[in-house]
């Protein structure tokens, strides 16, 4: 599935990343340029390399500057995971980011589709109203959200962490843009075939914007996986922390050693890193698509 999506994305992203620069003559300048770029790239991943290497070092070696551990160990990981908290936070983050992503994908594309393909009075106002919420910073909403959560008993619950992100204005905007590329004839044909409007959206239009959905999914999942401010505010019991909140509280415990903090940081970073390494080209295309159309 990834391969076909990759192809469709390639077709839709205006060939932006496909076009290669014309071949340059192998010259000294070109060689130096390559070396500097490559060196810079290595420098960019050094913090991550040190995070992983330190998470695999024994305490006696942690403050050595060598990157490769003399005696690599997974003991820090067993220690951190046996503690149980990180495992729980990992599961919390996974559940919350997954549900939020699915919800946002469903509703954002439904709204984007409706505003794009239905002509009715008021649709322009609805669109502008939704779009205008992009101007409102989350930070302005967290206090009222907290008040709401308090009066409805949503504090310290999955729902409390998730509800602000169940729909996104950015997604509506992005999906509306992409539904413009779906020809009306297809939808009309489905209508003649007797499909109702929901079926037309779900069975005909949605499969045609899969690359856009994938791009949006990456953005929303990553955003929720790394979200910090709201989960920090809405959770009070450690059992409900998400990974970032849990890591912050873990790091603040004075007696925790740096190699264990690095292990925690690695646990919260590795899933997205591995995902990136597998779907690299696909993710970069998605980012370009969402970034430029959005």
């Amino acid at each position: 599935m990834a391969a076909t999506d990759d192809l469709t994305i390639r077709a839709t992203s205006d060939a932006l990343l496909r076009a290669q620069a014309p071949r340059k003559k192998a010259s000294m300048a070109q060689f130096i340029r390559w070396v500097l770029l490559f060196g810079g790239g290595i420098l960019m991943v050094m913090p991550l390399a040190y995070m992983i290497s330190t998470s695999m070092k024994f305490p006696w070696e942690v403050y050595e500057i060598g990157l490769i551990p003399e005696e690599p160990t997974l003991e820090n990981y067993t220690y951190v995971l046996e503690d149980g908290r990180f495992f729980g936070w990992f599961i919390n983050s996974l559940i919350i980011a997954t549900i939020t992503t699915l919800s946002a994908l469903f509703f954002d594309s439904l709204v984007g589709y409706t505003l794009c393909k239905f002509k009715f009075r008021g649709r322009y106002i609805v669109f502008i109203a939704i779009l205008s919420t992009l101007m409102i910073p989350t930070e302005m909403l967290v206090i009222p959200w907290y008040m709401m959560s308090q009066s409805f008993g949503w504090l310290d619950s999955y729902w409390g962490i998730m509800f602000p992100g169940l729909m996104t204005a950015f997604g509506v905007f992005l999906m509306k843009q992409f539904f413009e590329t779906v020809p009306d004839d297809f939808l009309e044909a489905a209508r003649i075939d007797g499909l109702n409007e929901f079926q037309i959206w779900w069975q005909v239009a949605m499969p045609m914007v899969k690359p856009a959905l994938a791009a949006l999914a990456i953005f929303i999942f990553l955003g929720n996986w790394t979200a910090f401010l709201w989960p920090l505010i809405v959770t009070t019991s450690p059992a409900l922390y998400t990974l970032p909140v849990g890591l912050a509280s873990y790091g603040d415990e004075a007696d925790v050693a740096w190699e264990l903090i690095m292990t925690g940081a690695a646990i919260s970073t590795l899933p997205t890193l591995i995902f990136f390494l597998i779907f690299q080209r696909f993710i970069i295309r998605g980012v370009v698509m969402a970034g430029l159309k959005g």
Partner: protein
Amino acid sequence: MAVDPSAHDTTKAPNAPRWGLYGRLSVGQKRTIWAWTFLAVPILFYVIIRFYPTGNAMVLSFQDWNLLGARTWTGLDNYTRLFSDPVFWQVFRNTFAYLLLGTPISLVISFVIAYHLDQVRFMHGTIRALYFVPFMTSAVAMAWVWRWFYQDVPIGLFNNLLATVGIPQVRFLNSTTNALPSILAPAIWAGLGFQIIIFMAGLRAIPRTFYEAAKIDGVSTWTVLWEITLPLLRPTIVFIVVLSSIGFLRIFDHVFNMTSANPGGPLNSTKPLVLMIYQSAFSSFDMGYAAAQTVVLFVVLLIVSLIQLRLLKDR
């Protein structure tokens, strides 16, 4: 993608009246009903979770409330108190320091890298991935990694490296002058990859014919860069500047996690507006005061975005 099994239920004849009133409607009216049905839940969501809280925050900024007692009207008190609070002005300066250092630095670095990477073919994808990888990380995790780098000898990596080459120690996070740039560094680092990718897409979108024409005219590379590439990249540049400005004005995760022993310290020298909001609301429970700060943040973001959108229009 999974298809809803019930969606296959197409046994009913097309356009047959299913139930009385609905059947008598015109196609256009039916579609309008469908549209509002689709929009019903989202509209409810946007009203309850976005618009109502926005109004609530604005109202609260004119009130005094400690989360437990009654909300009492205090007029402009929160704002006058805020504008006469020296900590607020310190925070305001810090917030703009993040913006005014972070945005230009990341813009220049990412453009230079994108410009050169665009002309490299050997291992192009690998190098691009190396620069992009930090974008996939969580700010909290990276804040803790960098916090460790910044520790004093014998703990921190940077000072250990300096020690091996015999350079005197640098105080990073516990110095009032060095702490803010030290916190900014990982924030810039994590965002570079995204900006590079967007810049490269912008560069690829410039038609080759421009460059070929310049080549025929014998124009220097430098002139091509200033006269063709940069002017044509203007929409990309404005886009990146807007996004990164908003990001730096809202910086929080890095500051909170790198200074959590004394958030915003030392001596408030790293405290950004969002951290002040967080502390006023959830440490001091001074909800009205915090709400007034969020309104200020909103106005600042609005002004900065409007200025930049204006620049985009002026093409």
